């Protein structure tokens, strides 16, 4: 074993983040680390990289006990990390980023020629053909990530930790990244792969470790597992029939609904090609596609977030003007964005204020909603959505990701929109809370709300949608209804040439 962790314990005031956890990593393997939010994954990583000092337990690397106290020390010991938000400097050149801290010097001054040569040497074998003298920020995230990996490996060379590296990448870029990782594995590096994309875990890793609530649950070879068993380990109970219970029937038994909204020829030059969309009352339209295909952009157009260069919107009483979020809200729309931290919650405001915000904005600046009324509203939604918070006055930034998502949802539910857009409503939320959100969506449609749901989790998308629109390369390419709504057909529509793809593990 390259790296062994035994009895690792780390506590914070009020919580036990890691309780007697064990983990080991062999040289030449990719070991995935799984767990819901709050399971202890990031705490474990931080203990490894020296950001935290564990309260108990021991870490052994190459037979020697280590206790890194800083990222620098961990690096020197041989442990390198690459995070989801590329932790390099976009305003410096690729070469500067690669060689930072070890720039070759001439007469005491940094030599730019030497730096360039060193950088190019470091990038050999990674399959990148880039100009190292250009600013890092001019390259795509995927390339930046590979540069980050190159730097981490060059600096450390024994263990590489990848913390959610693929969240911002599309399928092609993910494959590029995985090729690099496989190459490093074959060279004898030990790689820890933290991810919540189960497909990718099955694709890339050799072994899997599951943490839950700070405890070690299981470590197994990936070949011995399937998705269901894996989720069972993570959740402690089976998810599948929960999803089944709530799956919308796709066998033609769906009721006929009246058309409510008509979007014609909506498009924006350079962003998304014109599409038509009709929304019926009480229906759920799913939007499927790869990252970057234009799903979020389509939704943003409908909500007035991006200036559409073409298109009109109409409802039963006449044309609708959708040139800004305020206009869209005025038309009865709502939009729960993908990135709730930057686009959703107002972190320092309380739960109550966050829930009441959109309502207040619609009412205008002059007529304040009385505090008592706001509190009543907040309490109602805290109960309905099971938002875990000690009280409604707590700052929403202090809540966990899943509960923050529920607060954003509550904000829109309070507006009682006729058309609600949800962009990745279950992203980054513990698997247990997913079922709750799906249940909620069914309740809403029963009450007559129409929804547009964007999701990368095809299972969930199929479970809630009445029909699914597939987006590919910034075009709406297919609309699937009835029996056509299945993972296989969706995946096929996303892929280019019509042959079935292995997207799922057995």
């Amino acid at each position: 074993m390259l790296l062994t962790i035994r009895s690792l314990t780390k506590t914070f005031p009020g919580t036990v983040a890691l309780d007697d956890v064990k983990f080991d990593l062999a040289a030449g393997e990719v070991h995935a680390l799984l767990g819901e939010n709050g399971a202890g994954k990031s705490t474990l990583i931080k203990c490894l990289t020296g950001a935290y000092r564990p309260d108990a337990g021991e870490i052994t690397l190459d037979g020697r006990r280590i206790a890194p106290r800083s990222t620098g020390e961990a690096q020197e010991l041989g442990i390198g990390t690459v995070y989801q938000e590329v932790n390099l400097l976009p305003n410096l050149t690729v070469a500067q980023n690669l060689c930072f801290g070890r720039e070759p010097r001439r007469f005491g001054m940094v030599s730019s020629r030497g730096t360039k040569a060193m950088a190019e040497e470091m990038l050999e074998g990674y399959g990148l053909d880039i100009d190292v003298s250009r600013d890092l920020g001019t390259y795509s995230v995927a390339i930046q990530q590979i540069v980050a990996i190159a730097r981490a490996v060059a600096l450390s060379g024994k263990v590489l930790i990848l913390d959610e590296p693929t969240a911002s990448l599309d399928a092609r870029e993910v494959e590029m990244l995985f090729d690099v990782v496989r190459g490093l594995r074959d060279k004898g590096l030990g790689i820890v792969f933290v991810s919540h994309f189960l497909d990718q875990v099955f694709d890339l890793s050799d072994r899997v470790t599951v943490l839950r609530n700070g405890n070690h649950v299981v470590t197994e070879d990936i070949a011995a597992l399937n998705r269901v068993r894996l989720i069972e380990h993570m959740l402690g109970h089976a998810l599948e029939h929960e999803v089944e219970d709530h799956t919308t029937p796709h066998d033609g038994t769906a009721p006929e609904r009246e058309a409510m909204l008509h979007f014609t020829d909506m498009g924006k030059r350079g962003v998304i090609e014109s599409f038509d969309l009709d929304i019926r009352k009480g229906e759920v339209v799913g939007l499927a596609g790869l990252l970057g295909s234009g799903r979020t952009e389509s939704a943003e157009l409908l909500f007035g977030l991006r200036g559409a260069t073409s298109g009109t919107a109409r409802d039963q009483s006449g044309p609708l003007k959708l040139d800004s979020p305020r206009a869209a809200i005025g038309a009865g729309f709502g939009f729960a964005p993908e990135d709730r931290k930057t686009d959703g919650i107002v972190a320092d405001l309380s739960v109550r204020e966050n829930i009441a915000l959109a309502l207040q904005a619609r009412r205008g600046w002059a007529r304040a909603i009385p505090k008592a009324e706001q509190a009543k509203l907040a309490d109602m939604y805290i109960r309905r959505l099971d938002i875990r918070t000690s009280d409604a006055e707590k700052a929403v930034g202090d809540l966990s990701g899943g509960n923050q998502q529920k607060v954003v949802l509550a904000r829109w539910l309070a507006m009682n929109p006729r058309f609600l857009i949800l962009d990745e409503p279950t992203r980054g939320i513990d698997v247990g809370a997913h079922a709750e959100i799906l249940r909620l969506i069914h309740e809403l449609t029963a009450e007559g709300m129409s929804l547009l749901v964007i999701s990368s989790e095809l299972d969930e998308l199929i479970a809630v949608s009445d029909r699914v629109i597939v987006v590919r390369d910034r075009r709406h390419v297919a609309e699937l209804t009835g029996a056509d709504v299945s993972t296989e057909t969706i995946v096929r529509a996303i892929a280019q040439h019509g042959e079935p793809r292995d997207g799922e593990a057995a």
Partner: protein
Amino acid sequence: MPPSLRRVMPQVVTLLAVCGLVTVFFPGFLEIHMSDGRLVGPVIDILKRSAPVALLATGMTLVIATRGIDLSVGTVMAICGAVAAWAIAGGMGLGAAVALALGAGLLAGLWNGTLVAVIGIQPIVATLILMTAGRGIAQLITEGRILTFTHPGFAWFGSGTLFGIPVPAVIWIVTGILVAQLMRRTALGLLVEAIGINRRASALAGVNALVLLIAVYMASGLCAALAGIITTADIRGADANNAGLWLELDAILAVVIGGNSLLGGRFSVAASLLGALIIQTIDTGILLAGFPSEYNLVIKAGLVVIILVLQSPRIATEWYFWRRSVTEGPPPVSRAKEEAR
């Protein structure tokens, strides 16, 4: 203790402490008596002299709450004062002069707000532009001289009294109360805080961030105009070179002393006003206590450092953990570890 009082407690305590300190050196500090129908005394003097900074701080509080800053307020003071003086010297009536001056302040605020909200320039840079060019504009209006005039009606703004209280004091106190009430009785306070904490999320929730941002800068300009009118009226002249010089820094200091974060979000106008009073009390107190006024700046600097230490997030974290460890005892440990012992 009601939360609004608790919010300003640190500032009240500081003000009382400073007053107490000054009284030690100058026992007559707290004396007030009537003379010719006007109240007289060091405290009254402080109330009057803090008018410019207090007014600037009122507008500045709102701007800073939106995560912005307005470096141009001192300059806008000079411009508005120059406009008022020019109008009066040119024969226009009191009403016209005041209206023009206020209009100039609103215009300056509109300019700043547009640069920040529409074009998207960083507030410190956007207001730096007006701060730099504005002195030149003010000098243009006064043609480089100190424009003096006599107009008893206008002079009342600077040296008159209302029920014995100096008019400048009345103006800033009334303005402060009006603004604070406006913020809390309407939804403005919440909306301003929301866009200061997260403009994008607020806009997505339907908050009209653009208009609000422009409005706070216009409010700041309006306050600066009021301050400019008072200052010009007080010296019966518009000094484009010196009016409002560096007052924006005092205003920012007042807002910071008021416990408002420079990073935007929750704000309290009352606390900023107390901050302005603290600053002025120190200024006057030093003079009364017999120290040379040069000590003024050094003491201000020391005060800022103390406040920084108290407000520092790092210190706050240390304090928090220390308190918890004292009240709650050691955190729970797993059974395995206990058994191992």
